[in-house]
C-alpha cells in the first residue's frame, strides 16, 4: 500500500555553479587576483568602457579580460588591441556567463601573470545576476539612454552590485534621463551602492573610475600581504 513521503532537501539550485565559483574565488584570492564582473543591458557601453580603461593602463600591467557574447568575437578583437590577454567566451545561446565557462576560459593562462581580471558578461540585466563567477565584485553599468527607473525594474543586479557606473554621460543633455532619480532608485534597492558617472567617449569621469579600480587593486594586494 503506497504512502506519501516527504523528503526535506534545503538545497540551493545553483549549488553546482556556486561550488565552481567558490573554487575560483579561492584561487583568485590565493593568486592575489582582483576579479570584476561587469554586467549591463546590451549597448550600455561595457566594451567601450573596457577599451578606454585598457588603453589607460601601462604596458606590462598584469591585466587580462574575458568577454562573453552569444555570438561573434567582435568584442574580444576590439579589446585585444590594447595588447593585454583577452579571451572571448561564445555562449552560443546561453544568456549569461557561468562559473564553468570562466573556469574553462582560464585554462591556458598562467594565473601568476594576472593581477586584474575583468569579465565582461553577456549583455543582459537579468540572468547574469544569478551566476556567481567567483568575482570580488559585480559592477552594473547603466547608460543615460536607458530609463532612470531601471534599478526598480531590475532590482536583482542593483542589489548585488558594489558599484553602479552611469555611462554615456556626454549624451545626458539630449535625453530625459534623471540622474538624481536613477541614483535614488538604485539606493532604494541597495543603500550602500557606490556610484560613478562616466563618458568613455569623452573621458569625463574616467579618472574617478581609474581611481576606483586602483583603490580596489591596492586593497586586494594589501589584504594578502
Amino acid at each position: 500500500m503506497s504512502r506519501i513521503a516527504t523528503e526535506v532537501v534545503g538545497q540551493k539550485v545553483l549549488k553546482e555553479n556556486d561550488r565552481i565559483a567558490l573554487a575560483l574565488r579561492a584561487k583568485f584570492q590565493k593568486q592575489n587576483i582582483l576579479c570584476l564582473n561587469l554586467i549591463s543591458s546590451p549597448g550600455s557601453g561595457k566594451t567601450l568602457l573596457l577599451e578606454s580603461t585598457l588603453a589607460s593602463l601601462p604596458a606590462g600591467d598584469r591585466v587580462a579580460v574575458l568577454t562573453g557574447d552569444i555570438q561573434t568575437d567582435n568584442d574580444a578583437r576590439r579589446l585585444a588591441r590594447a595588447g593585454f590577454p583577452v579571451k572571448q567566451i561564445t555562449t552560443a545561446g546561453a544568456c549569461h556567463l557561468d562559473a564553468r565557462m570562466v573556469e574553462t576560459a582560464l585554462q591556458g593562462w598562467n594565473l601568476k601573470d594576472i593581477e586584474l581580471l575583468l569579465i565582461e558578461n553577456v549583455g543582459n540585466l537579468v540572468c547574469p545576476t544569478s551566476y556567481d563567477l567567483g568575482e570580488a565584485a559585480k559592477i552594473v553599468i547603466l547608460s543615460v539612454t536607458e530609463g532612470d527607473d531601471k534599478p526598480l525594474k531590475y532590482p536583482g543586479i542593483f542589489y548585488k552590485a558594489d558599484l553602479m557606473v552611469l555611462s554615456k554621460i556626454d549624451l545626458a543633455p539630449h535625453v530625459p534621463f534623471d540622474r538624481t532619480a536613477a541614483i535614488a532608485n538604485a539606493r532604494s534597492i541597495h543603500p550602500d551602492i557606490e556610484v560613478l558617472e562616466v563618458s568613455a567617449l569623452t573621458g569625463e569621469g574616467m579618472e574617478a573610475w581609474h581611481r576606483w579600480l586602483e583603490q580596489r587593486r591596492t586593497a586586494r594586494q594589501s589584504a594578502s600581504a
Partner: protein
Amino acid sequence: MHEMGIAQSVIEIVETQTSAHQGARVQVIGMRIGPFAGVDEASLTFCFDCLVAGTRLKSARLRIEQAERDELDVTFIEMEVP
C-alpha cells in the same frame, strides 16, 4: 532563456535526492524563489513541465513559495512510495 537551465538543475537535484527511491512517484517539488533571484516563476514552471514530460518525473509539479532577496532553493520533495 536561462529558466531552462535552472529547471534542468532542479531536475538534477530531485534525481539525486530520489535515487534511493526508484519506485517512487514524485508529486511535488517545493521551491523558494526570491524577487532578486532573476528567475521568472511562470517561465520556470513552463520549462520544468516541458523537461519532465515523458520521464520518470512526469507527475511532478513545482510548488513555489515566495522567498526573500535572491533565494533560489529546492526545499522539499513529496513522493508516493510503494
